[in-house]
């Protein structure tokens, strides 16, 4: 399974979200998920099982079905919830 965080240049904020997703996966006790980050321009929907973007980028990912929109990209509690949702949808086991 692969999760991918995206932002416009794929350098700073998506990288932060990636690290926070990794932290969230540990929080909920999910294993075997690879996490990466990228810019909007170079990724197709098939390249990951679930994408994560901030709500300001919602319109740029309308071609994606498998995407979680984050109301705030610095809110770890929200991210944990969204990561848990993603795991449930994809059938990834987690302990919390």
């Amino acid at each position, binding site marked *: 399974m692969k999760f991918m965080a995206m*932002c*416009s240049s794929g350098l700073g904020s998506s990288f932060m979200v990636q690290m926070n997703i990794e932290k969230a996966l540990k929080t909920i006790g999910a294993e075997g998920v690879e996490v990466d980050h990228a810019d909007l321009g170079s990724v197709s929907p098939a390249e990951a099982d679930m994408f994560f973007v901030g709500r300001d980028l919602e319109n740029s990912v309308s071609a994606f079905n498998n995407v979680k929109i984050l109301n705030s990209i610095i809110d770890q509690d929200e991210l944990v919830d969204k990561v848990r949702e993603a795991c449930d949808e994809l059938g990834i086991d987690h302990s919390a």
Partner: protein
Amino acid sequence: MSGFLDILVQLFRQPSILVALIALVGLSLQKKGPSDMMKGTIKTFVGFLVLSAGASVVTDSLTPFGTMFTDVFHVQGVVPNNEAIVGPVLLEYGTTSALIFFFGMVLNVVFARLTRFKYIYLSGHVALYQSAMIAVILMVAGMSQWEAIFWGALAEALITTVSPAVVQPFMRKVTGNDDVALGHTGGFGIALSGWVARASRGNPEHSTEHINVPKSLGFVRDSTIVVMLSMGLIFLVVALIAGPTYVTENISDGQNYVIWALMSAGQFAAGVFIILAGVRVILAEIVPAFKGISERLVPNAKPALDVPITFTFAPNAVMIGFLSSLVAGLVGMAIMGVARTTIIIPGIVAHFMTGGASGVIGNAQGGRRGAILGAFANGLFITIVPLLLLGVLGDIGTANATFGDSDYGVIGLYLGYLGQFGGKWLIAAGIAVATVALFVISILMDRRSATSRSVANVESAGVSAGS
């Protein structure tokens, strides 16, 4: 023995190898297994070479453009795009830049540990670009490589500690807490936006978020598309003014001038794309290690993150700020045209990133009026700064691209002007003074907040005693 030393020196002169070694240090600090360590180190090594390849693609597209611009307008035209300039700079000053970047991060943690400014600068990409610029300025001023690394790392740590601190009072208004900070080379311009928005006395209740902004502007989010479109327009306009015969005879080797303009803009965008990919790979192993270590060593550390963290708070303000900043850039360009100076062509990516954040900061401080005026001030700032900066960058300053954000100007001009007045030792003195000032200010602010806290305690005690 000297043969061995020679090989060692040759190894360290290769920035790609040096950066790979820094990644190896990062991976071992994260206690990764041997296979992860090997993967990460090799990826970083190749990533740097990817970046170098992108640099030549960008340079190839910009050189004929520079010739044409100068022939047509009789002044130099410069595009402020951080990726476009950092590639060529790293080819020439790679080892020094990489070491300034690395020790700059280390010193940033030290400063965060020892002062009240607990900002850990996690935007590795702009920190790398800024280190590269500092390397150029110090070497141009006559420092040896080791002097440049020592003083450069100190300067880099200073600006990465101070820049988030300057924006933080305004960030608190946006995020509603004091837990995250803004770490970006646009910091001073964004803080300027906050100050202007406060002075404009706009009402924060009149928020940009109550306006309906057309969704069709969403494409500016994709940096490849926006770089291609903006550079395409710039190449096309200059080619049209130069005229078809000039282009086919002097520049394009017979190719139609419209096709040439489109292909060159596409090549520029492709070069930036390649450089971005290289930077992404380089940072992937270094930043997490830095984050992990700083969290352990600095209690109450505040991560200073890239500008888009502000964008979700007020998406409309991002668009309004971008447009306002861009208009300021165009106004600035017109003024430069009249004044016959070198012309700074508005860098769309810089105006979007820092203008967008300026809009959000301005909106939280002074509503719509604050967003528009604040971002406009930022736009003017990031147009003037690159122009002044060209003078202190030596040969790099005559290239057709330059660094585009406000902090490059703040630290670059400080160091550059000190160098022009008093040479390398005045620069060293200037950095030493600034370091001492950082600690003194930290102590004074600690005292002031301690007294105001005790006053507040006395007052609240008085109130409770009175009731």
